[in-house]
């Protein structure tokens, strides 16, 4: 048991707990209203939006999983960098439009928009269920971030219920302040979380290269270690990996902005300029992410040996830092899990409340009823995530997370392309979605969940690429062809409840 590290960790953790509960009073609003609880009244400026979207972008799981992938597979793990680079243009171009139509119609979820745009309950349900399914394992994996640092501090290890007690406690605290404070809690905690993470990464980037003999040596040593690893890899991509690298980057970039929690972060901002300015400042996160990915190489160069790759970063820190700073860095990771887990559970419970509960069970629900239901559902969602991690093998959550990325991209035609055109027929969209879901799932199963890269065979040509991208192409082909057929046969396409000018960028002289 590493007491020094643990005490520092505990102090920081208690601090954010107090902050999370205090957040209910911050920019006070009527938290019994859904838009106040789940979107904090759509009033966040550039600064807080930056932390919120940044919190979505790199989570504790990213902190753990990206270096773990780099540690095991080398260069391909760095697709995370072009992925986040491509996120910014998409935010700049697409999200102000999405924000405007959501504001005009008080939409709170992507499925709300689809319901209004395409006049289809079935399609909205498909989008909502996809969002919930994709988000659940993501929340579960945030817990892994907490668990690995607790384990690395020697806090778990005893058997039985005690084994998971610290994790359960941490999550109970998170659940409690999300329940009382709503989105205000992760928004305030995010500021602390990122301060801790930025300090950790900057210190690591100075201290570790000095100890390991510079970046040149780190890359060389990592390359040697990768070549002699169980699955030989390299710090440079082989030409066979180019397409996989590119499709992983572009597919993940679009997928990220379709995740309900990313949409929540965008909708909570107060204007289009706040969103656009974010596209310019979010790259700071990407630089951090690139540096975090390099932790994987540092661990190789530092001769960290572990079969559990999720322990790579904690073990590296234990080897390189004094105890008190280990506690600081571990707190950064654990708090880094709380923020996205809170936003994700709010987004998932919004989807349930707005698009399942109200749509199918209690159509007359008031916004206060919705807020009540959403709060309870956010607890259920977190409990589900906890059970995932405590009761099922970890691999199960990892597989589902991989599937989640593939699934969420299948909402691209209805949600993102739907922002620009209503040419698609609602039934064609639904069938295209179904085809994409099935194709993507089968591809992941065919690869036995070991990789999200599927070698697509066309004639003699074999194209290894991100399964989500292949699936969404199938989805789009089906949607386009069937739309043409349905339109030709004059099948009712429903009424568009949004108007052309709802999407306009009407930013007046709002200065934030």
């Amino acid at each position: 048991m590493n007491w020094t590290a643990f005490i520092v960790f505990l102090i920081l953790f208690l601090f954010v707990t107090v902050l999370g509960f205090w957040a209910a009073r911050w920019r006070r609003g009527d938290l019994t209203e859904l838009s106040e609880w789940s979107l904090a009244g759509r009033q966040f400026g550039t600064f807080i939006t930056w932390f919120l979207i940044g919190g979505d972008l790199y989570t504790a799981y990213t902190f753990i999983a990206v270096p773990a992938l780099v540690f095991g597979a080398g260069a391909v793990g760095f697709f995370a960098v072009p992925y986040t680079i491509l996120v910014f243009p998409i935010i700049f171009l697409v999200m102000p439009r999405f924000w405007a139509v959501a504001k005009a119609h008080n939409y709170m979820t992507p499925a709300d928009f689809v319901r209004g745009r395409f006049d289809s309950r079935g399609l909205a349900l498909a989008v909502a269920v996809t969002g919930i399914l994709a988000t659940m394992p993501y929340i579960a994996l945030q817990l892994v971030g907490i668990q690995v640092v607790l384990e690395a501090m020697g806090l778990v290890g005893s058997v039985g219920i005690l084994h998971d007690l610290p994790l359960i406690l941490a999550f109970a605290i998170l659940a409690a302040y999300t329940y009382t404070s709503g989105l205000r809690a992760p928004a305030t905690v995010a500021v602390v979380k990122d301060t801790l993470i930025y300090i950790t990464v900057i210190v690591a980037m100075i201290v570790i290269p000095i100890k390991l003999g510079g970046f040149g040596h780190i890359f060389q040593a990592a390359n040697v270690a990768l070549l002699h690893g169980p699955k030989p890899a390299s710090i440079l991509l082989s030409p066979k990996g180019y397409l996989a690298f590119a499709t992983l980057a572009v597919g993940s970039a679009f997928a990220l902005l379709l995740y309900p929690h990313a949409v929540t972060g965008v909708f909570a901002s107060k204007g289009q300029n706040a969103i656009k300015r974010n596209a310019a400042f979010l790259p700071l996160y990407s630089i951090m992410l690139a540096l975090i990915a390099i932790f994987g190489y540092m661990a190789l160069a530092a001769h960290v040996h572990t079969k559990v790759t999720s322990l790579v970063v904690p073990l590296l820190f234990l080897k390189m830092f004094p105890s008190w700073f280990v506690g600081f860095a571990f707190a950064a990771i654990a708090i880094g899990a709380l923020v996205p887990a809170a936003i994700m559970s709010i987004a998932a419970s919004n989807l349930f409340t707005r698009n399942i509960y109200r749509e199918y069970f209690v159509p007359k629900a008031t916004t206060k009823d919705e807020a009540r239901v959403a709060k309870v559902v956010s607890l259920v969602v977190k409990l589900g995530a906890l059970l995932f991690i405590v009761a099922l093998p970890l691999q199960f959550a990892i597989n589902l997370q991989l599937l989640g990325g593939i699934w969420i991209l299948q909402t691209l035609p209805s949600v993102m392309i739907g922002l620009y055109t209503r040419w698609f027929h609602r039934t064609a969209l639904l069938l295209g979605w179904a085809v994409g879901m099935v194709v993507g799932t089968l591809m992941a199963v065919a690869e036995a969940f070991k990789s999200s890269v599927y070698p697509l065979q066309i004639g003699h040509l074999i194209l290894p690429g991100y399964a989500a991208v292949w699936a969404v192409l199938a989805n789009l082909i089906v949607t386009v062809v069937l739309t043409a057929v349905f339109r030709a046969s004059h099948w009712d396409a429903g009424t568009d409840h949004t108007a052309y000018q709802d999407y306009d960028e009407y930013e007046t002289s709002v200065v934030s």
Partner: protein
Amino acid sequence: MNNKESNAKKGYRWFFLIPFIAMLGVPFYASGTPVLGGFPFFYWYMILWVVLTGVLSLILYSLGA
């Protein structure tokens, strides 16, 4: 701002194709040399584009795109 002017400004948005080309043209940057500060080309090129994309966003924002 009249409509024509606003449409012209939206035209600047095509510049956002540049980071896509720069990032998706993997064969052009998947090499190890030239090395900069110990970083193989593949790595510093990507980090450089993080910065360039941020700067591009700022410029397009200030142009009113």
